[in-house]
């Protein structure tokens, strides 16, 4: 009897949160997969089962492939660059350098600002002729360049903004982890005559691995979620050069109102995130623990 009441209480406590989660996370994820097998309902043309028709359309959609390759490129740069910078920043800020408080504040500030607001600032920064970047390059006699308007540099330009926004955020996790390394480890290493590089490579870096895993998971999710700045900086252009997957979903779903195709694209994005989760929790976690 007592166990039954406990079970009822437990479920009652859980119920409100689970109901909301089911309605806005589990159901939509399931509905996206379901809708991807149907056509979009139009006036006087109700939706019908189309099997893999939407997926066929997707494989023949050049913008989809462009978005995939853009997103992979974006991920391939933002993830390692923001993690490496974060680690470097944390190592510096952890040492007793002059003006440490200012330096730490400077690194962390982008984190607390809205992405949409900082994108406005970066738009100004990148503006041809007028912007700060152009002015700085002009000092060195370099020619003017339209960073956001040119197909060759637009994706790199939005990638830089993402790295700038993220690195300071990840830094604080590394800083916390560095401060938890017992000081006697560095004393012992110094007694053994290990160089600073050896100490970092053999002691600090391995001890930071759990933090790196946590940061990595966040960086991967962010690489497929961060699109706010695109709305301000490029709107996916020029010629889809900066269209990322989620931005493409937005365009298909809310500019063309093709919800079935948007659901298909969402399914792909969910598959990517699930795959990332499997790799990270399954493979990497084991290796970190056994090392």
């Amino acid at each position, binding site marked *: 009897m007592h166990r039954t009441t406990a079970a009822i209480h437990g479920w009652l406590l859980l119920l409100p949160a*689970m109901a909301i989660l089911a309605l806005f996370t589990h159901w939509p994820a399931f509905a996206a997969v379901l*809708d991807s097998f149907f056509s979009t309902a139009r006036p006087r043309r109700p939706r019908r089962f189309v099997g893999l028709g939407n997926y066929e359309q997707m494989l023949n959609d050049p913008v989809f492939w462009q978005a995939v390759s853009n997103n992979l490129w974006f991920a391939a740069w933002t993830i390692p660059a923001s993690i490496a910078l974060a680690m470097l920043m944390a190592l510096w800020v952890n040492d007793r350098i002059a003006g440490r408080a200012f330096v730490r504040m400077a*690194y962390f500030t982008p984190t607390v600002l*809205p992405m949409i607001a*900082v994108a406005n600032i970066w738009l100004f920064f990148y503006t041809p002729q007028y912007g700060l970047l152009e002015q700085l390059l002009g000092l060195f006699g370099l020619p003017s360049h339209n960073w956001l308007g040119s197909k060759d540099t637009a994706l790199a330009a939005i990638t830089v903004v993402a790295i700038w926004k993220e690195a300071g955020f990840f830094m*604080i996790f590394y800083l916390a982890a560095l401060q938890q390394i017992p000081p006697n480890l560095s004393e012992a290493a110094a007694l053994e005559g290990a160089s600073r590089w050896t100490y970092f490579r053999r002691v600090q870096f391995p001890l930071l691995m759990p933090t790196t895993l946590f940061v990595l998971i966040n960086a991967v999710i962010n690489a497929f979620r961060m699109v706010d700045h695109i709305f301000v900086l490029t709107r996916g252009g020029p010629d889809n050069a900066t269209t990322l997957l989620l931005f493409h979903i937005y365009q298909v779903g809310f500019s063309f109102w093709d919800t079935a195709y948007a659901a298909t694209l969402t399914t792909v994005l969910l598959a990517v995130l699930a795959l990332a989760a499997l790799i990270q929790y399954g493979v990497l976690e084991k290796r970190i623990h056994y090392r």
Partner: protein
Amino acid sequence: MSAAETISPYDPRGSGRLLETVAAWLLAILWILPLAYAVWTAFHPPEYSARFELLAPLTLDNFARAWSAAPFARYFLNTVMLVTLVLACQLVLCTLAAYAFARYEFPGSSVAFALVLAQLMIMPDVLIVENYSTLNSLGLIDSIPAIALPYVASAFGIFLLRQTFKTVPRELDDAARVEGASAMQTLLKVYVPLGRPIYLAYGLVSVSYHWNNFLWPLIVTSSVESRPLTVGLQVFSSTDQGIDWSIICAATLMTSAPLLVGFLLFQRQFVQSFMRAGIR
């Protein structure tokens, strides 16, 4: 930040230290540069927006013009209502769920917990199309609750509070029960007060996240009455103003000001809160 104050033998000395300080400062200046540029432009007359002269006159005119050019007062109100609503609901829902996971044994609890954790990977941010149609059928489109609803059951919050509640000694719980407290009273009198630093940490993270959130509010709102600041700023800077950078920079700083000022005043709490929220 106290244990690290003992000097490590690997703390750089001499020229190494100078090199490291210079490098750290260069990166810091690089990091703050876009923001400094915006501050310069916002506080100077438009003719100085790309010209740097030490004696350029300071002005608040750009802020006044931005403020009167768009209903920013209403956007501020909307954002404040939004973050308050989200946080209040999150605190209630996450506390109840976390208590269930931490202190109750019931069939299906591990499956339920796995279902909660799934949201850490599949965030509402990516389910925009389906969530829009759900809220549409609920008739809630273009309202502040519509922006809030997908986020109020936060897996992150549940996870964080569950970890916290698990560290509360069972004896405290038992003692409260012996004195005749109900489960709810025990939760409110024992668990919640002990979790205060975590609540503060979670609150700061949640408020800054929803103050800054853009894509979902952009999709579900279409009127001044429900638009938060981020969407209002985007509408303002992309349509209302041509390329008057002074006024755009002023509006941009204005929308970020509360968080920025809060961060500068309570830097320690901010940084520690983000750390605390991340470590568990």
